[in-house]
């Protein structure tokens, strides 16, 4: 009973956030002084277009009718959004939904691997550091993690690009798929895709050394817990203790951080995809900004925000499976 209530409420919160994001995008387009709408109309007029025609075109592109009163325009906009109509890109002359649908999988591909691998490495290395707390490995890796964590990942990305691609030629210098190969589930194509994604993923992993520090701290805390001492006295095997007792409990605080991290990575992907000329959502967002392609920018903004909101929802809803204490919000003590 209680669980369902709580989940429904959480779902309600997510719906509210999504609504707020979309409304905000509407407000930005419509209300901002020197607003995107006016800017677009001016742009078109400067190209010698008839003002009335320009206005119609903008209306079509942004899914906002500037002549309608705000409430009615808002309703139209929301209806369009719900129907999945994000408008028409000015620069690419394509529907925004299509552009995002084509580019989002690539970004997700890079992000999910980068997140997954860096999380995995962070946990393993952090656990090792905790186990040999104060030892050489611990001190060395701590310094390394701090160093890597303090260098912006795009600087690292450029360094990697210089050495791994331009100097030594291990990896392609840009792009997201091999040229001259028919897309499909063939090995040459798939290996080519991985080959292209390797450097962006690598640069994100190297920069995320801080995760291991978090894990280290958690693991050290768990190692001092009473239940660990009891488990040792009970004669449980080292494998059980390290996986079910130490790792399981130390990961708990990392889990939410992981999914929040996806949001940060989306932001980072804008720069990263630029560096590697990797045409994902981030690349299109930046290019749309240069081109003053407002519909595409807005669409990207809405989609990325929704992705983060959904990631957080997933984190919240699944946390209970990891930590029984969080199942339902009240303790069922009897």
């Amino acid at each position: 009973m209680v669980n369902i209530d709580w989940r429904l409420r959480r779902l309600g919160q997510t719906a509210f956030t999504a609504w707020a994001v979309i409304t905000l995008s509407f407000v930005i387009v419509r209300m901002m002084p020197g607003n995107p709408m006016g800017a677009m109309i001016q742009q078109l007029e400067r190209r010698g277009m008839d003002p009335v025609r320009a206005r119609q075109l903008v209306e079509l592109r942004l899914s906002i009718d500037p002549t309608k009163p705000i409430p009615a325009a808002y309703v139209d906009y929301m209806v369009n959004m719900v129907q999945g109509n994000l408008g028409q890109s000015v620069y690419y002359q394509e529907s925004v939904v299509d552009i995002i649908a084509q580019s989002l999988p690539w970004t997700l591909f890079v992000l999910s691997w980068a997140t997954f691998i860096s999380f995995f490495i962070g946990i393993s290395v952090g656990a090792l550091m905790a186990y040999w707390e104060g030892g050489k490995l611990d001190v060395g890796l701590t310094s390394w993690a701090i160093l890597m964590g303090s260098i912006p990942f795009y600087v690292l990305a450029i360094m990697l690009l210089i050495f791994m691609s331009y100097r030594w030629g291990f990896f392609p210098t840009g792009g997201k798929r091999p040229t001259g190969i028919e897309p499909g589930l063939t090995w040459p194509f798939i290996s080519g895709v991985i080959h292209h994604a390797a450097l962006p993923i690598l640069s994100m992993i190297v920069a995320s050394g801080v995760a291991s520090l978090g894990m280290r701290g958690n693991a050290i805390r768990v190692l001092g817990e009473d239940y660990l001492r009891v488990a040792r006295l009970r004669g449980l095997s080292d494998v059980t203790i390290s996986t079910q007792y130490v790792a399981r409990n130390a990961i708990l605080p990392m889990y939410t951080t992981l999914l929040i991290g996806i949001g940060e990575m989306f932001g980072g992907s804008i720069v990263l995809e630029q560096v590697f000329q990797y045409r994902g959502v981030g690349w299109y967002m930046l290019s749309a900004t240069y081109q003053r392609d407002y519909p595409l920018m807005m669409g990207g903004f809405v989609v990325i925000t929704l992705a983060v909101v959904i990631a957080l929802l997933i984190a919240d809803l699944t946390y209970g499976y990891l930590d029984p204490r969080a199942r339902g919000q009240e303790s069922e003590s009897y």
Partner: protein
Amino acid sequence: MTVSETDYERTVAHSDPILQMRDTTVSFDMERGESRVLDNVDMDIERNEVLGVVGESGSGKSMFASALLDAVVDPGYLRGDITYNPGDGESVDVLEMSKRERKQYRWEEVSMVFQGAMSSFNPVRDIETHFVETLEAHDYDVREGMQRAKQILSDLYLDAERVLDSYPHELSGGMKQRALIALSLVLEPEVLVMDEPTAALDLLMQRSIISLLENLKERYDLTIVFITHDLPLVADIADRVGVLYAFEFVELGPTEEILEDAAHPYTRMLLKSTPNLESSIENMRPVEGSAPDPVNVPEGCSFHPRCPLADEECIDVDPGPYDAGEGRFVHCHHWEHSAEEIPMEDASETAGLADEGVESRSTKPTPDHEGEEPVLSMQDVEVHFEKDTGFMDFFGDPPAVKAVDGIDLDIYENDVVVLVGESGCGKTTLGKTAVGLQRPTGGSVEYRGDDIWKVRDGDGDGSVSWGHIRRSLQIVHQDPGSALNPHRRNSKILEAPLKRWHDELDGNDRRQRVMSMLEHVGMTPPEDYYERYPHQLSGGEQQRVALIRAMLMNPEVILADEPVSALDVSLRVEMMDLLIELQEMFDTSYLFISHDLANARYIAERTGGRIGVLYLGELVEIGPPEQVINNPQHPYTQALRWATPELDPAEERAEESPIREIDVPDPTNPPSGCRYHTRCPEAREVCTEQTPESYSADTDAPSHRGTCFRMVDDHEYWHSESIVDESKDSFDSAADTGTAPSDD
């Protein structure tokens, strides 16, 4: 008289020890030097005995427990000889075992129950997994083992299926502790080492667990080592008691002998410092001084700096064990004279003891407050905490925890009210409501006739301000360590109230005031303490600072929430004396919270206060201490009385538990009628239907009231049908062949 080591060996040789400890030392290397936390200890644990080990915190008692399992945590270093005699096989040297042997020895032969049952289970795995993985790790048959586990759990009065399905956080503290005991017994060990197994629990639960332990010991043929700081607690269960002081045993002997005729001065003083219900208040004395630092244990007898009997010999020569007869061994040169020098029952002053508060250490009769104007008056106060609800809960009332449910209580000038009850009974909530820290959801709290929450909201008649009320009602917390800001010096902490409320004082005056207060509470030289940070103080000193801080506000009522339970046993009486002294000096009233009836009695009898007993948010009995303790009207008070450990073992063992259920009912869904009827041995039909009012007790104290039908002579209760199932009226009657409690 001195017996040599070999004599000692010989005396115990004809016994059958299951564990033998010789010259066992546990040390830690510290920057300040070698810290010996167990110092050349010899001990024989006899087969099938219950050995009680008593010591204050920092006496090495946990190290003793760890050493028995060769489980001293790094970087501690354990050396000496520990021999395990299984009885039907060869003796084993515990410290020379291979990894395999040690794994077998731990838990299969000797298992352990830790103090922190709250944190002894992996929070992300259910209880059943803990049992299964233990059985698997030791290659036991899991199915058979789980059968055994269920049996043990039900022997401990737990619903086995339900507990096994639960996660640790879903169980109450008492349930977790019992589940942990079951877990430690699942491999059928010979020896069970229990390190403060009940310290974090309520008295009633402690006592219940101890009576269960006696049954378990018989049924599973156990040897139990029971380690505690609470001497009266082991009196019930232990066959022999060993007293630890400064990392070695100072006395060892049969329980009766130790309790009635302790030979070591420390044991005698410890006994006298322990509040209990039987011995008279005049006899209770704190042990002066403090326990030694493990790096720097005094030469000779380690107790000599605190001992009234100490002479040159004690300073020079470490007293070996003296055989005091009847299996008793004492590490004291003057053990024969200790009984004269430190009499247990003597109100006259003895040299070197208790030089403060001599004339005030007496009982005061509880005055009749009839007609007096109360300082603080609570009428029908209710505090209901609503459980967190989703926005889908439109229908139906959300379940509420009725932490406080309809309590009337008046606190007068110079009054002391001690609230006792189990955890979760609402005593802290009631206390916070009284001093205006918790807003009641019903009823009123009046300060000298003004409703404090009306004043707070600006609806008062303007005669008193909220600031005035806030200042008049103060609080002293249970844990002084977290009640003081760690980043501020004592000077800042203590001057803050003066700055706020006494504008007329300049810096110098403030300093003078704080200094004199510090000196008054025994923190000398005050200049030294003035500039210290809280972490540079001991627990007792921190509590003193917290107390002074409250006192400097010149309050009229202080809520003291378990102010002594974080302190060592020997310091408690001292702290309570100080509280009482300050009360007289500052003319304040106390609302005291305690889970311990013995402490409650001490405070209430010395100040002429009252004891109030709370159960599930209701005040079930209130009255003068001698009435509540000696003539309890409510069956719940009688149960608390039973649960308070006594120093007279012979009398107590015969008694049978007066409660039918160990665990407190769910507070979100309290029982109908009288809330105690589910556990009450006297419950009848009418108790499940009608809620008893507050009746005046038929005693000569007018302030003695209780809420039980049994207090009314011609109540229909007496014609009602009993609901007590005679076959299982008390939870440990299965083992005891006691009779069912009679009705009058």
